[in-house]
């Protein structure tokens, strides 16, 4: 399809190789299995393929058709035109890992700037070039803690209000190691205060992991928990929404050793769950324990400033089975997108977006709390998500909302039996006051049905 060869060129090339036909190049392949017949649909031209893809997309209801109040780890934010326009440049899009720095300064400097932005937002000393997504970044934080204590501390304390998918991925990653366990949270109510975690920390605890704002939208000051964690030599990891950090105290200020998070809110489309961006930042003293690529500043022979991949001796291509992670690529283009987004939106704009989310959520909460049958379930300050206790099963309410072109909130009963009939609603700068008022009207209608 995209190969340029003409018949005569093929013949000339085969002559140069010294074989009769292309088939002769495959003599090492066992004859019995050579050239299988593949059962695939007939090939399409570009015009036909575009039509087919458009038809598939038409089978979806997207947030261009629906008003979205669904969050729970992926958020509907505005992506400025500049972001996609720049990341589509072939020079970024069709380059690979910057192994040859002389011809990759664009990618390298962009990652260096990304690292700077993440360090600034999180209040940490260093950020790596990114992981696959927030969940795998959290799992890599746990693996880092394992290696930090050389496997001698086996306990990991995961907050019950951590995103359940993050917890699942952490559990999968931990299952590759012997003598490790996840302590505590099963016994805890997801609504409990983070102070409840303190009782589980001991000298065998490698890491405590909390979320900020947590999965239920709540904002806690973790300073006391961090102190208690550090007193026992344990590492303290905080999972963040980077957009919330435009407003809130950065985790570096209350003692985080590692900050990870889902970078999707920083200019990345929801795209049915990926590609997203795994944020990973830490303190200087753990930089060599951090998995993943890292870009550093240096100079060339003439003293000109330039950038290179650095500390590569930590990585799998050198350490092989001694490496602490097998990660190879980062999310290059997505990290670039978020760097462009933050550069454009800037210091004032990012704070503005965060405040818009905050105010819209609080307006909605106040209105919803007045609807008969619904009550707010917030025992702490919250950012742009909060829990509503509903008079009917969440699924039923959402079905009704959908009839009004509204994508309702996340059904918390799916993950937390104690939160049956509880919906997690998310608000962003994309939701107008009219949208929110409509949501409230329909919620009232369902309650009275």
């Amino acid at each position, binding site marked *: 399809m995209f190969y340029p060869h003409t018949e005569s060129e093929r013949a000339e090339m085969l002559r140069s190789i010294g074989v009769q036909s292309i088939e002769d190049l495959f003599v090492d392949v066992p004859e019995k299995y050579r050239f299988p017949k593949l059962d695939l649909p007939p090939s399409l031209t570009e015009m036909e393929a575009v039509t087919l893809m458009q038809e598939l997309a038409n089978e979806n209801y997207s947030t261009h058709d629906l008003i979205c109040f669904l969050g729970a780890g992926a958020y509907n934010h505005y992506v400025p035109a500049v972001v996609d326009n720049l990341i589509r440049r072939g020079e970024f899009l069709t380059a690979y890992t910057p192994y040859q720095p002389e011809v990759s300064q664009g990618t390298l400097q962009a990652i260096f700037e990304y690292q700077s932005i993440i360090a600034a937002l999180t209040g940490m000393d260093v950020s790596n070039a990114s992981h696959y997504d927030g969940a795998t970044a959290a799992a890599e934080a746990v693996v880092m803690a394992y290696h930090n204590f050389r496997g001698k501390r086996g306990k990991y304390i995961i907050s019950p209000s951590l995103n359940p998918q993050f917890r699942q991925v952490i559990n999968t990653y931990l299952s590759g190691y012997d003598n490790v366990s996840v302590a505590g949270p099963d016994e805890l109510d997801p609504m409990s205060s983070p102070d409840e975690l303190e009782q589980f920390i001991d000298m065998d605890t490698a890491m405590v992991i909390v979320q900020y704002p947590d999965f239920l939208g709540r904002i806690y000051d973790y300073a006391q928990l961090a102190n208690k964690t550090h007193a026992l030599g344990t590492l303290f990891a905080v999972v963040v929404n980077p957009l919330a950090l435009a407003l809130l105290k950065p985790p570096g200020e209350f003692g985080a050793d590692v900050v990870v998070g889902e970078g999707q809110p920083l200019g990345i489309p929801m795209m049915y769950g990926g590609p997203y961006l795994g944020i990973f930042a830490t303190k200087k003293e753990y930089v*060599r324990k951090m998995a993943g690529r890292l870009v550093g500043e240096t100079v060339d022979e003439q003293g000109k400033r330039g950038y290179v991949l650095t*500390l590569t*001796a930590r990585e799998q291509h*050198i350490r092989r089975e*001694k490496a602490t992670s097998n990660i190879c690529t980062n999310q290059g283009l997505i990290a670039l997108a978020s760097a462009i987004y933050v550069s454009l939106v800037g210091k004032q704009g990012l704070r503005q977006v965060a405040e818009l989310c905050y105010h819209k959520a609080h307006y909605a909460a106040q209105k919803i709390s007045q609807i008969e049958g619904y009550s707010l379930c917030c025992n702490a300050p919250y950012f742009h998500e909060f829990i509503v206790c509903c008079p009917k099963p969440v699924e039923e309410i959402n079905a009704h909302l959908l009839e009004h072109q509204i994508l309702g909130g996340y059904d918390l009963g799916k993950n937390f039996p104690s939160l049956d009939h509880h919906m997690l609603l998310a608000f962003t700068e994309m939701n107008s006051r009219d949208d929110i008022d409509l949501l409230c009207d329909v919620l009232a209608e369902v309650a009275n049905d």
Partner: protein
Amino acid sequence: MNIPQNLKYEKTDEWAAVDAGKVTIGITDYAQSQLSDIVFLEYLVATGDDIKKGDVIATIESVKAAAEVSSPVSGKVTAVNDDLIQTPEKINTDPYGEAWLVKVEDVDVGDLSSLMDAASYENYCQERGH
């Protein structure tokens, strides 16, 4: 290639200087040249630790490679060369002198007899090519 006559050598490219029951350990000139520019050293043992022959006592990173240093002898660590943490490049410039890594006492004498002398180590390096 500098291979001092008075030292003993391990297959994993560590040297041992024996002096009345006390042993000083480092990595060889061959090892440092294979690693090239060394930028990082981390000790995995501390003064007072009992170590066994083959235990990893430090990891070394260069720009292009990483290596583990294992102890050629069993014994008790009496000193680690902390200065090297700040200046690991000394391992490149003076591997047998300033850049010693650890000192060990109460050494198991049997371990020493299994190490190579300078001539054997030189042959061993040549076999592996450069």
